[in-house]
């Protein structure tokens, strides 16, 4: 193999045996602040949680960074106003994301049902051309 020292790609997004999924590091200098070090996750999760945290009134600061592109973890820093702990607000943010996703799932299912009904076919996919027009000239 030409590049035998190349790490397995899967180690960038799959937790290995015995690997911790996350660490919570309390900030020793700033009150009500903590850093979450979350392994084998990237911007997909980090940015979603950060934007959700910023909508919380109890959150004073929320930010994330991926310190190095070859190291598969991100740091999420959260400071609260003291009425809740950083862990609490992250849990709330996650719960809110989960709720949003399930609402969105319902909206999509309604829309898919309507669209497939409009097409006037019980099995819309069977009667529709497989590829859309973009491929017609191929």
């Amino acid at each position, binding site marked *: 193999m030409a590049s035998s020292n190349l790490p397995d790609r899967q180690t960038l997004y799959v937790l290995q045996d*015995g690997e911790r999924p996350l*660490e*919570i590091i309390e900030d020793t200098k700033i009150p009500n602040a903590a850093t979450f070090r979350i392994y084998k996750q990237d911007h997909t999760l980090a940015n979603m*949680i950060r934007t959700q945290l910023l909508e919380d009134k109890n959150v004073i600061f929320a930010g994330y960074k991926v310190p190095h592109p070859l190291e598969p973890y991100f740091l999420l820093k959260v400071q609260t106003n003291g009425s809740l702990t950083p*862990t609490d607000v992250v849990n709330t943010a*996650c719960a809110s994301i989960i709720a949003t996703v399930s609402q969105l799932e319902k909206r999509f299912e309604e829309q898919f049902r309507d669209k497939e009904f409009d097409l006037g076919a019980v099995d819309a996919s069977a009667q529709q051309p*497989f590829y859309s027009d973009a491929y017609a000239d191929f």
Partner: protein
Amino acid sequence: MNPNVRIRELQRDKCNFVLSGVNLGFANSFRRTMMADIPTVAIDMVVFEVNTTVLPDEFIAHRLGMIPLISTNCDEGMRYTRDCDCELGCPLCMVVLTLHVRCDMPGTTMNITSDHLQIQSGGDAWGGEELTKRGEDFGLPVSKSRGFNGHPILIASLRKGQELKIRCEAKKGIAKDHAKWSPCTALGFEYDPYNKLRHTTYWFETDKQAEWPLSANAEEEEPPREDAPFDYNAEPNKFYFNVETDGSLTAKEVILKSLSNMQSRTATLVYNIKHQSRPDAMDTTDAPAFPPAGQRTSGQDQSYTNASGWGASPNTSGANMGWASPNATAQGGWSL
């Protein structure tokens, strides 16, 4: 958040929709999930028995990897090779395709296409739970599926006497490993077509308006007044998506699987936060003399010296008030 969605166009391999009522971070995560986190099947290993074509083995192997294979319900219907109990691949984690073509026509060339790939059956005897969850024609090239009206994919051309005989192992994977596993060929994502939020700056030669025509999505929004002041508090909340797939999954399936992927990813984080202070199998066998950095609490020395047994020497602190209790220190600190 109160999300809403309006599908503007729906086809088997294409879905155009407007997402509203969510924040930018959520919309972008949705986009990233659709592109890179939905598993499909793709050829990953090729055994060449005969290759007398003009193309070298690795060239053909690379082309084969790119061929979209039908992957309906792949996330439930198939195992990752790394999670499977088998040694060298079994019907639960692998689909085997074979191809054997020889050109015997003089004076003309013959095309090998994705339609020449045959699926090697015989997986039914394994009777795994996964097999029953697979969709119709699972693992077959998209060009051979029912209702397909395009052209098959060209793999190589043969002259008289040339032959290709191969065995391909298709495996489950995601696009973070290799882009061939992405169900999406293109994913359009736009917000704020009038650039009211000034998230971008247009470079122009002489006339900005003439050189930057408005996108079709501009019809969905009110044009800004010329004299409107800049609203620096405004947030984007209408996102225009256009999902196109390679046929391995339908656009509808990509969308729905992405949503459940995002949900389980977030739920896993909540679970991990809840359980992070408990020693798992690894930690009990090899517990540190001091709590790991992540669980050390600041300025609260009682965490280390309290009744839960953090004495000077962990070995003398008694069996039941064990030193293998990093969670005890967590309780002494801020609640986890």
